[in-house]
């Protein structure tokens, strides 16, 4: 029994739903490779209207995948991996470094003892 998984699955559902659309997936990919972009930049070259792009961005935003910031009269959109997720991965990184360091410590203290 894993009490964490139903919650995790429920949390992930809106994310998958939001990504289950080719235009929205393309928006995520674009923000991921190009960094923060304005609506104008996101709309240029797209086969859909600015209103449609805005609608898609709002769907992504409600799933917590993107967020917008105002810069003057413009809205700048960027990917949002979520502060909680970032905090979790931060601990993972530090945890990994301890694993590596302790692995080296084990090697250091146990190696010369091989002739025991």
């Amino acid at each position: 029994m894993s009490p964490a998984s139903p919650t995790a699955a429920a949390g992930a559902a809106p994310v998958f739903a939001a990504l289950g659309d080719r235009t929205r997936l393309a928006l995520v990919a674009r923000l991921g490779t190009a960094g923060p972009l304005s609506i104008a930049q996101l709309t240029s070259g797209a086969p859909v209207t600015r209103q449609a792009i805005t609608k898609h961005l709002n769907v992504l935003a409600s799933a917590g995948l993107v967020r917008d910031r105002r810069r003057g009269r413009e809205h700048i959109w960027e990917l949002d991996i979520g502060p909680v997720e970032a905090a979790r991965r931060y601990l993972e990184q530090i945890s990994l470094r301890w694993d590596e360091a302790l692995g080296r410590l084990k090697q250091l203290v146990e190696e010369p003892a091989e002739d025991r």
Partner: protein
Amino acid sequence: MSTDRIEKSILLRVSRSRVWHAVSTAQEFAAWFGVGEIDGEFVPGASLSARITHPGYEHLTWNVTIDQVKPESFLSFRWHPYAVDPTVDYSDEPTTLVEFLLEETVEGTRLTVVESGFDSIPLARRAEAFGMNERGWSEQIKNIARYVTS
């Protein structure tokens, strides 16, 4: 899962005094921890620094303040976790506490490392630190990009 602490435990098949030597002498600590020559000894209150030798982090300095030293059993220090941006002055930010606990067992020595105090590190700082190591996420984005453009 606690967001405030990391706890690691490892069994070392050597005597407790051997482990203590590796954990509490500057020269041996530097060797396994991955820093250059440490400019002092592990005594309570000492502020120590060294160059970081871990690949990719060589431009950084390692700084700790030794907290407690109980020979053969316990050592602790404070530092700024993940202080990886050389342009940022971390000195005003909260530190985490790193504790080494040594216990004798039949098989050797159990070493437990606890790093705690992460909850007082601003969330923004934690997110930022992650941003410097977001290769995993960027790779995923590239995969999505490949998928949608193919």
